[in-house]
């Protein structure tokens, strides 16, 4: 039994090594991936602009944003289905953990950047509404026999409560993703307190000191200049506001890491091809995860941007990390 398991493991690892070698070789040859003109451009990249990574490829910085836009334009329609298939539904747990750690008080304003299909925003509105209901229930329980004074006070405070309703703004650079999100909102019947804005994380179309909470879930690794995105986050947050980032990160356990690598490079592009008909986008996704800095490094970047009390939580053994910082 043990021998056969060991054989299976070895075969899986050999396959994954081969796969990684193939992709690495593909990149170095510059021909296998059919990215076509852009790879030629990257060889003759003497125009003076610096280059960055696009998955395991090196591209000029100006290119990356366009390429990422195309990737998400392609996957937008099947984005949620693919999320469920790839993570076996665990992504819902990750997003629920984000809300649980956030523990938003009623009346806060949320900005969800790279929010795309609106998962975080929907969860946020639901959480805040259930909190408000709980508070109202508690208040009514303690006020079973209100005096005339209390009743008249209630009449005057009813309008004040309206202005403190919590609001969620979903911002994304990609119009297709926002369209899918709006459709989801309509089908769920959620529309109060929700806005959809097109914007670039490196240059947000909002004033300073606007939001209580800034979240970016599985989006920051697609940003070309991460430190600029962090600076923008600092700018639009109110004093005392919280920055929260959910992102794939480095798995610490070596055994789990091997399994995770094998799963990522073997299964995910295949699933992408079968379900969404797009191998390359999901290849990019898996490669971009490997290129993203690890937990400690990212924590350092957040601190450099000017956030305090920066902390991270590892979810699912380090597959996903939840970073949190405060603007104080």
């Amino acid at each position, binding site marked *: 039994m043990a021998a056969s398991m060991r054989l299976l493991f070895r075969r899986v690892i050999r396959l994954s090594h081969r796969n990684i070698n193939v992709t690495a070789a593909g990149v170095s040859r510059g021909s296998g991936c059919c990215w076509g003109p852009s790879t030629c451009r990257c060889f003759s990249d003497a125009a003076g602009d610096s280059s960055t990574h696009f998955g395991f490829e090196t591209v000029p910085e100006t290119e990356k944003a366009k390429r990422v836009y195309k990737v998400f334009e392609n996957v937008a329609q099947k984005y949620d289905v693919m999320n469920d298939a790839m993570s076996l539904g665990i992504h819902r747990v990750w997003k629920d953990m984000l809300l649980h750690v956030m523990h938003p008080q009623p009346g806060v304003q949320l900005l969800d950047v790279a929010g795309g299909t609106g998962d975080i925003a929907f969860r946020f509105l639901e959480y805040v509404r259930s909190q408000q209901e709980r508070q109202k229930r508690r208040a009514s329980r303690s006020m079973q026999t209100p005096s005339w004074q209390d009743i008249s006070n209630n009449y005057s405070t009813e309008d004040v409560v309206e202005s403190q309703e919590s609001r969620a703004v979903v911002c994304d650079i990609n119009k297709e993703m926002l369209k899918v999100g709006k459709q989801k909102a309509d089908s769920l019947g959620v529309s109060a307190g929700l806005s959809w804005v097109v914007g670039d994380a490196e240059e947000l179309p909002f004033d300073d000191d606007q939001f209580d909470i800034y979240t970016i879930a599985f989006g920051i690794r697609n940003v070309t200049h991460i430190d600029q995105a962090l600076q923008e986050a600092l700018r639009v947050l109110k004093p005392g506001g919280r920055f929260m980032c959910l992102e794939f990160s480095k798995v610490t356990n070596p055994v789990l890491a091997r399994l995770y690598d094998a799963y990522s490079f073997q299964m995910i592009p295949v699933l992408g091809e079968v379900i969404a008909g797009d191998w390359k986008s999901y290849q990019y996704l898996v490669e971009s995860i490997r290129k993203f800095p690890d937990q400690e490094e990212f924590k350092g970047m957040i601190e450099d941007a*000017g956030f305090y009390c920066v902390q991270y939580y590892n979810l699912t053994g380090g597959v996903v990390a939840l970073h949190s910082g405060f603007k104080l």
Partner: protein
Amino acid sequence: MAALLRGLRAGRALRGLCSVVAAPPAANPQGSSLRRSFHCAALRLQDESKSDKPPSSSSTTYHEHYQAHSAEQDAAAASQDDSTSDPAAEEASRPNTSYQDQSGEQGEEYETEEQLQARILIAALEFVPLHGWSMEAIAAGAETLGLSSASTGMFYNGAGDLVLHFISQCNSQLTEILAEQHKQVQLGQAEQKRTADFLRDAVETRLRMHIPYIESWPQAMSILLLPHNIPNSLKHLSSLVDDIWFYAGDRSTDMNWYTKRAALTGIYNTTELVMVQDSSPDFQDTWNFLDNRIQDVVNMSTTAKQVQSTGEAVVQGLVGAAVTLKNLTGLNQKR
């Protein structure tokens, strides 16, 4: 790692300093590198209180840095009456902010983070009668300081943080009062109280600090009994009892040290429980209960001594009776 962070902060502060020196201080807020508004709350007060201090940033004297640092400490301590921010003062205080960064002391910033947390908790205490010991109270407190309610995420223990902070605040207040009284006695301005009276007064003073929050105190007690809070609450209780006995004059080094503190812990806890359900005017029932309990302890110690001496006397009597019997029956004679 720490050195790298310090270097980065110093580098950014230098850039910030240059841009500030270039622009007039009254200009609109500049780039994000100056947004150390975290220092602003403390420094705002500093500017309001020291209006004669010039907001120039170009001088880099060590003396001015010390002034800024000590003023910030004062400001943080006297932060109860923090008023709404004044943009001009905020702008003028920014040069000092980048100044303190230039000194590159990471220790300073961490100290101020805890001070900020302490300030939020102190502000939150006002809202406890309304919201109970909960995150809502902390959120309301943060809002009065001008911070978003999302900053309550800093308190990972939530309501437990608030209760523990309140307890330690009360304990330090009590210690100050006892030290003051001790000083009075040393100076001869007051008379040394009897142990029983001293204990009674100390416990009463400490329990009176709960009176503003007595409605929600049961909730606080239950929070303190949560498993992850028990180590901290026990620590606070034991240090409280130790302080009271120390100022009562206890210098014992034997088993008495433990028995005395155990007795006082029992008295304090039971009196607290009585106080929570007491409805008499000015908690008179509670203070009567306290008197009786202290009297019990005093009685018990005298009773213990009496029992011991009685025991010895009884043993002596028995030995004497046995010797007399032996004499009478003639067993004692040596023939």
